[in-house]
């Protein structure tokens, strides 16, 4: 039985096609989330890679901020539940905490020993501590967001970005650049600022190991390391991190068959 999970976020769309809720047949990611052609492009990509069509798939579940406006699915479920299923799929029942830094929010999901979400906490409405903050800063520095981590690794003395407000931090970064602060130090400071903000959120639910990160920002090794140090834990990473939502939706679809 094939099931498809679609995760429509604020900046990207992800899909995961699974067989019997256990085996990942294909994944796909396209830039462009809610309100763009990103979701359709990601789905078309799945069909192209698997030579399957919609009629071969038994159930489609959509998640993410765009879930309410997407009409081609058989149901929708929150990204919180999907990330929990996705995290459990990758790490099993030992996983206790998932830290997800998405495009416009950050969430911490607590898992119980049966692999289910027992509680969650999300950031307030402010963009500080979210992927959007990193995106804005990467834009100012004219850098690809995916290169922030490598650049930060070369820092010898991370700059201090004291403003949590994205708009204030923007001008702070510009003035530090003008004052000759080295780019790696600045990038490291930017990553640390996100880690500090998210760290405070995680502490509110009392972090328990095993801890992993999901979402696009999870790939930022520098940020993961700094956040782990702040919390005194090791933060696991898996290349599927960005697909937890989509994988979770496909598993949910299978469970609801």
């Amino acid at each position, binding site marked *: 039985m094939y099931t498809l999970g679609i995760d429509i976020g604020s900046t990207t769309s992800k899909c995961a096609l699974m067989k019997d809720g256990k085996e990942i047949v294909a994944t796909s990611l396209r830039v462009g989330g809610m309100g763009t052609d990103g979701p359709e492009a990601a789905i078309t990509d799945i069909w192209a890679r698997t030579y399957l069509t919609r009629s071969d798939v038994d159930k489609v579940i959509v998640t993410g901020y765009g879930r309410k406006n997407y009409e081609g699915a058989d149901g929708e479920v929150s990204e919180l539940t999907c990330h929990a299923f996705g995290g459990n799929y990758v790490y099993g029942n030992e996983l206790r905490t998932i830290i997800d830094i998405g495009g416009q929010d950050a969430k911490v999901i607590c898992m119980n020993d049966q692999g289910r*979400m027992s509680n969650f*906490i*999300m950031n307030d409405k402010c963009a500080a501590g979210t992927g959007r903050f990193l995106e804005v800063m990467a834009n100012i520095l004219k850098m690809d967001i995916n290169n922030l981590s490598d650049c930060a690794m070369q820092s010898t003395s991370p700059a201090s970005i004291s403003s949590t407000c994205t708009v204030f931090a923007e001008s702070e970064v510009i003035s530090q650049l003008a004052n000759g602060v080295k780019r790696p130090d600045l990038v490291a400071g930017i990553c640390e600022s996100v880690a500090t903000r998210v760290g405070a959120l995680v502490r509110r639910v009392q972090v328990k190991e095993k801890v992993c990160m999901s979402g696009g920002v999870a790939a930022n090794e520098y940020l993961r390391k700094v956040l782990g140090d702040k919390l005194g834990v090791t933060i696991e990473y898996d290349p599927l991190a960005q697909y937890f939502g989509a994988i979770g939706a496909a598993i949910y679809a299978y469970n609801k068959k």
Partner: protein
Amino acid sequence: MAEEVKKAPRPVDPNSAKYKLGKIAGDAYVNAIEAKKQGKPVAWVSSNFPVEIPETLGIATVYPENQAAGIAARGAGERMCDVAEAEGYSNDICAYARVSLAYAKLKECPEQDVAMPDVLLCCNNICNCMIKWYENLAQELNIPMIILDIPFNPDYEVSQAFIDYVGAQFWDAVHQLEEIFNIKWDDKKFEEVTGFSCRSSKAWLAATGEAHWTPSPFNGFDLLNHMAVMVTARGKAEAAEAMETLLKEYKENHEKGVSTFREEEKYRIMFEGIACWPYLRATSKGLKSRGINMVTTIYADAFGFDYSSFDEMIAAYCSVPNAINLEKARDKRVKLCKDDNVEGLLVHTNRSCKLWSGFMPEMSRQIGEACGIPVASFDGDQADPRNFSEAQYDTRVQGLMEIMESNK
């Protein structure tokens, strides 16, 4: 395009609690406007000021918080906040204060007009923002302000020294009002008023307590409307009678197996914080459509003042939710959650109310732990519509529901 057919609102039975309570709340505004026309004194009063004082002295009352809630619920919160902000008030200030200060300037707002005041009766047992708000009103309107200082109580119990301090101010406020308006305090009337206030409170608390039945005989959002009477008119005979009708109806609902919550009650939650008035429909729909009944909220119970002596009355005013320490505030909520078999807690992180929202992260964590229930919070505001995102609300409520479902 087909013409939209508007359904005529269902007539409300004049003997029902809903009708009686709606009428009392509406009459309070009309009576104050009438008093003003007749040259009688009108006071603007903060919600947890001892209602016994103006009621006994026969001073007509207007509750600016209540007015601001009405204005916000009718969609004019932003317009009024804009007026206050243009006057130089920061948008970080409580939106009730901004709406009220805007009204003091405009002296009209079709969404909820009120009589202008001759005196301000302020009590800081809900917050200290109240003091500055009323001081500014006093200055702008050039009228006297009487303040009853009830500081935040860091202790669990209310000490006798605390009671004496507030009790003395109670009588001082009475004497000031007697002098300003040349009126006389009447002990007999005071006794009558306290009697009604306690009767209203007893019935109100018993009515909200009917939520211990599963399913609950009422939709918790009803309380948000009905409580207006507890805020503004609890010392009146009609209020006591209407609250007793409400209690009777809830009891009957339970006996007949019906409820004012029109969906199947699948989950029961406690709602924390002031209602998000500009989005009352959206916040209510997000719950109702998922079969989630908000069965209890401390916000409603906060206006039940039951006492049997003067000192107990003062102690009750010193024990309102925003004046008590974290442990006591938590214990009250844990009791409500346990009494009413609550399965989840939804917290309104109200950008207006710093005091209330400020200690919620820790308090809700402790409540969640003590009751073994999941907690979700959302950003919003009681009157400024710019601080709410429906998508954010929806995701969090859905997440909360999914945990409650998997806990079953």
